[in-house]
């Protein structure tokens, strides 16, 4: 069971992207996909949107899965494996969660399920890079999230021009030069094939997976 995080700051387009990706992984590639969504604010707006897609969705409320309800998240993964046995679990943490901590919590789930920690995708909103990286505002958190990324998906590229996209890419690369950068749009579909290719690399529908450590 491969655990893939679609992380990123609030409003970066995680839910929309996750829905596009999950449909493609399930319908085009034949994977059994489950979704785990976590929100602060205690009303599962994203979970309701996802449920309408007809996918298997688990809502985790009552706090953030990277800290407050981390063990609930780990138990949820075990339960998902027992009840549904998905090939891939796409996890949408809260927009303020730290991906590294979510990864550690997911690894705890390997006590009860064969878990493989997949790539961490962190979305970076191309429409507001300066605002996001402003250290007087949320810059510290956003840079911490970016620093945990295997793949930085620069999102909403359909609503910015080439110069703005280049600026957003440059700003994100300054934080984590070693990551892979994929400009994406959940509206036009730009970049999604490449992203899905990366997320499903070496995975086969129905295959059992070995337990691995998050580190």
């Amino acid at each position, binding site marked *: 069971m491969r655990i893939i995080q679609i992380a990123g700051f609030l409003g970066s387009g995680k839910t929309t992207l996750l829905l596009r990706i999950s449909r493609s992984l399930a319908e085009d590639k034949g994977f059994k996909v489950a979704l785990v969504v976590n929100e*602060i*604010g*205690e009303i599962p707006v*994203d979970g309701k949107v996802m449920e309408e897609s007809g996918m298997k969705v688990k809502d985790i409320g009552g706090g*953030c899965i990277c800290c407050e309800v981390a063990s609930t998240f780990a138990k949820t993964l075990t339960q998902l494996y027992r009840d549904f046995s998905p090939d891939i679990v796409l996890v949408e943490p809260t*927009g303020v969660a730290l991906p590294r901590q979510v990864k*550690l919590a997911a690894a705890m789930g390997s006590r009860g399920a064969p878990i493989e920690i997949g790539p961490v995708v962190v979305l970076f909103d191309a429409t507001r890079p300066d*605002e996001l990286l402003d250290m007087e505002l*949320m810059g510290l958190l956003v840079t911490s999230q970016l620093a945990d990324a295997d793949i930085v998906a620069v999102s909403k590229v359909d609503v910015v021009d080439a110069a703005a996209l280049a600026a957003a890419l440059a700003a994100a690369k300054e934080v984590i030069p070693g990551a892979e950068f994929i400009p994406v749009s959940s509206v036009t579909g730009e970049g999604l094939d490449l992203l899905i290719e990366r997320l499903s690399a070496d995975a086969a529908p129905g295959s059992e997976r070995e337990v691995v450590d998050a580190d």
Partner: protein
Amino acid sequence: MQTDDACYLDHGVSGYGVAVKLHHDRPAEPQEVGDLLREMMDAIARDCVERGAKFIGHIKSHLMCAQGSLKADTIGISHPAALHGELSGPSNDLYVAINSIVQGITEVQVKEATLGSAHRLAEERGFRVVLEKEHLYFDEYDFASDEDYLQQLEAQFESGAEE
């Protein structure tokens, strides 16, 4: 791994969620409903900023009614709210879930901004807030109309009378 110290509190982020049922005496047109939801998101964001919010993280909503569902959200007052989805026809009853996550003001202030704007916008457009559930989503009982509820009671009564 489980802790009482939420990561987001360190960054001054507060969240508030509420579910409201709105009723209009005449069926509201899809355009009217979409405008209401979009403007509600913008109004909450503006209200949060007026109360001192430094940063609008995400203000989002999900609306359900018999004619379909809509989603609206905003990430700040310089970014107009986006609306997705469509309704197939006019509707009297709307079930709206709202989640507001912002930085720089307290949860109480986020709550006041969210509820205040939601009520004001709805009432300006002729809707009444007939149900409000803080921190909780609707359950099956919220969706039952009085007629449905009475029918269920009648069915219970009849089945009880036969026993």
